[in-house]
């Protein structure tokens, strides 16, 4: 019972605090953790999938910036040890690009009609989720949108992680490389640099 109760908790990252049609922001329960860049996360009811493209930590109160406290400490862990209130004053947020959603158990790799609600729970996706999601690659145009260098970083990070969930990672990387090549056909320099990041 306890373990059952624990599992959903373990996968929970935080709550949606800002949402738009193409992306949303999650306030993470754990400071400095949250989810890595390029990770696949999902909200619940409705299930909306998104890829983390920014992780930021800052002061909860926008008017009060953190200040340096560790001049006399031996490392930053000691800073936290001797200033327990810091955990309450700082927040970690992750920003994620929406790449798909489920409706009636059908997975769609395009934007949902409506964004997630505020306070919707956000969860990590497990290996199974990631593998199933990346059976098709229709979401790639959504990921490649925006300033190219950042988009390429996020896309390659995502694909690298996704590859590890497939039985033949090299083959997955090759196929996704081909898909990306179709989309970036008229900018071979960009394609080249993205493909280099895929390995």
């Amino acid at each position, binding site marked *: 019972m306890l373990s059952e109760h624990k599992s959903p908790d373990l996968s929970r990252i935080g709550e949606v605090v800002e949402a738009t049609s193409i992306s949303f922001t999650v306030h993470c329960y754990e400071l400095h953790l949250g989810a890595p860049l390029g990770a696949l996360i999902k909200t619940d009811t409705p299930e909306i999938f998104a890829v983390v493209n920014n992780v930021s930590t800052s002061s909860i109160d926008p008017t009060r910036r953190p200040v340096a406290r560790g001049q006399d400490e031996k490392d930053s862990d000691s800073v936290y040890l001797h200033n327990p209130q810091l955990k309450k004053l700082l927040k970690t947020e992750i920003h994620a690009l929406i790449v798909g959603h489920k409706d009636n158990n059908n997975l769609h790799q395009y934007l949902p009609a409506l964004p997630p609600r505020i306070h919707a729970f956000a969860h990590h996706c497990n290996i199974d989720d990631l593998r199933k999601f990346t059976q098709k690659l229709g979401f790639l145009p959504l990921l490649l949108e925006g300033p190219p260098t950042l988009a390429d970083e996020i896309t390659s990070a995502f694909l690298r992680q996704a590859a590890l969930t497939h039985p033949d990672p090299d083959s997955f*990387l*090759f196929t996704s*490389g*081909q898909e990306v*090549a*179709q989309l*970036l*056909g*008229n*900018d*071979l*320099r960009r*394609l*080249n640099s993205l*493909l*280099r990041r*895929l*390995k």
Partner: protein
Amino acid sequence: MSIDRLGIIIGGSWANGLDIKLNSSFEIEDVIVGSLVTVQGKNSRFFGIISDMVLEASDQSLRSSPPDIDDPFITKIISGTGAFTVIKFSPHLSITNKANSILHGPEPALTIPSHFASAFPASDSDINLIYGKEDEKHLWIGSPLGLEDSRLCIDLERLVQRSTGVFGRSGTGKTFLTRILLAGILQKGVATNLVFDMHNDYGYQGTNEKGNPVKGLKLLFPNRVALFSLDRDSFVRRKVSPDAEVKIGYAEITPDDIRILAETLDLSHLAVEATYRLAQFYGQSNWLREFLSIDPRDELNELAKSLNEFPSTLGSLHRKLERLKRLSFVTETAPEDAVTRILEYLNRGIHVVLEFGKYYDDYLAYIFVTNLLTRRIHEQYVRRVEESMGDQSKEPRPLVITIEEAHRFLTPAIASQTIFGNIAREMRKYKVSLLIVDQRPSGIDEEVLSQLGTRMTYRLDNERDVDAVLAGASGARELRRVLSRLDSRQQALIFGDALPMPTVIRTRDYGTNESYQEFGLKNSVDHQKQMEQDAKDLFGDGE
């Protein structure tokens, strides 16, 4: 058996050829220019050949900053997407799904497939559909590029309906192809052959480039071929005897026969005209005998005065005609009329090969004999056809005359005057057509070239020769590209009446035992039976 798709149509035009984007799984080096392709349209299937291959890039920056080729991962992804190959394909034939189209077979394509139609390399069954299967009218001539085991056939009936040209540099395989054609014509019985065999290649035995012997027509079909000879000694040396010897008497030689030798004998225009006056003066059958018998030092001036000619003209003519006298087969009176003898055989459907023996390099002998005999044989054919007055059963059998080094007979200067120019132009009106074997088609009169129904050409390096061979052919531009890329041996481009569309083939082998058997060379038991039957045909039933 599924065939891998070559690619899909992504653009192009009817005039300039369609573009096929090569499937990334297809290895580009496996694609051969000149090979046959099938495209499946919505309602029709199209057939054609690959006429060009182009490497393209979706972004031109590929040229200035190509991917790192030491990184196979990236290079492999980009090949087929950002960097891809386009194959140019010209649709020549199409066949629709409708029943009567299937019955008639493929027709010239008048439309094109739409975007994204699938293209495949042609299959065996495509080959049979397009070119027909081997039968009494179709001769297996070789295999198409990339399909070494397929048998591609030409329509032999259509081939002999008009004159044919076989072209290529020396050593490319023209002689072999000609042997195959002659053997095929003989085997299928679509015509009778008369071969003027200048280099002794076709009659008894020839050699291949390694110096090994290759059977000639006489050895393949011993009782259906008659070997004539201009030089008995060459036969004796080979321990074979010819079926007949050719001798030409003075009386048979007319001024027309001298005229065609003008270049070879270096006769001036005046000298040629003088021969006509001589013939008028002495009479057609006597002029040469009389003229050659006079002493040039004494009687020439007298003669010049009577004919109103310059003595120098006659003097030069006399000297040069002496060369004719020196040919061992030219005699004052011939024991029998060679032409009558040849015609006897031809009329019975026996094929005749005239070997030139020691005259194998003698252009004077070759042009002289070939022209003279052809002229007179052709005369007979004209007479017979006119006498038959449309009754096909009375008409003579179709005759195919094979000549080599045709550029010496058919230069623009003399083509209009020689019998060969006439025959080419007549187009089988009198049941005679030519098979021209030559390595310098640029030397042949353009009009004659355009009269050739089918042209078969090996690689030609000289631009002018290429122009000549392709003159008047449709789709010449595309054929040109294909022609320039032929392998230097055994690959020939064939186009014209005998094939539904221009095709590059690798000619079949000739010279191995299997190849002889294909032509019907039987083992001893069957051979005996065949010999008995042939003897009956040759000599008649009764004793």
